[in-house]
């Protein structure tokens, strides 16, 4: 059994310890709140919208015309801020034989996408890791059946479209 002075001393000691724990916790949370930035990722949605814009532009009348100059076809769509995006198009016939391939934008985004894919494949997923995961590009890939005009021929083919959107400086 403790006497009253002993109980009071222990109470003060307890309060002191709790105070120190609170100080340390406040410092940790305070520093964390300055460093922590909340990111809402809409790049996948942007990639989806950009893909739709590119498809509407390239196949405006329902056919993909490859009889002219294919370099700059995507740039001619007039989409701004293409530096932040990468758009890759591969046109194949129904047997899978490549007819044409062209791209526009930052091909470094492909390297970033590959890097993240490899890291995820090894089991160390970076998804949701703040500060690193935010640099993973937004991604959309789709195949579209189109009528291809090439070398004075008209045939059914497939347009494989890949769109990546990089991190935006805010």
């Amino acid at each position: 059994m403790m006497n009253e002075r002993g109980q009071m001393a222990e109470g003060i000691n307890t309060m002191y310890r709790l105070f120190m724990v609170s100080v340390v916790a406040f410092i940790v949370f305070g520093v964390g709140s300055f460093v922590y930035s909340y990111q809402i990722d809409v790049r996948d949605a942007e990639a989806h919208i950009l893909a739709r814009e590119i498809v509407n532009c390239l196949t405006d009348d329902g056919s993909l015309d490859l009889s002219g100059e294919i370099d700059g076809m995507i740039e001619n769509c007039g989409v701004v801020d293409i530096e932040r995006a990468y758009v890759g198009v591969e046109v194949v016939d129904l047997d899978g034989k490549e007819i044409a391939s062209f791209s526009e934008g930052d091909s470094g985004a492909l390297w970033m996408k590959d890097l993240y894919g490899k890291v995820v494949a090894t089991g160390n997923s970076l998804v949701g890791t703040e500060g690193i995961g935010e640099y993973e590009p937004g991604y959309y890939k789709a195949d579209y059946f189109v009528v291809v005009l090439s070398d004075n021929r008209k045939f059914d083919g497939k347009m494989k479209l890949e769109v990546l959107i990089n991190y935006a400086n805010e």
Partner: protein
Amino acid sequence: MMCKRAAVVNEFVIHTILIALILAVFLFATAERVNGRDVRQQVLEKQLALLIDSAETGMSFGVSKTNINGIIDDVYVRDNRIFVKVDGLRSIGGYPYFSKYSVEVEETKGKFVVKVK
């Protein structure tokens, strides 16, 4: 004088209450951070950028000044970026859009109207 069991129970109750109070303060601080002005500004800018990106020419959409995300003081576009000022917090970088159309913002009574031309 208290018996030892009573002293232990007393100390346990005080500890529990204090720890619960500290946790509550941290939870409220975290909730405040997540619902902060900068996050609400980010939500509005990104929503507007996506709307502009997916809009066709001739479309327009209004942003009420008394919004669920706070009081909207200003909405403007510059260098293909949309900026929203929420609850007095000025936007530093805005958010980029890639629409090929020209975008304008008009202020009317009670709302901002974003026009895609």
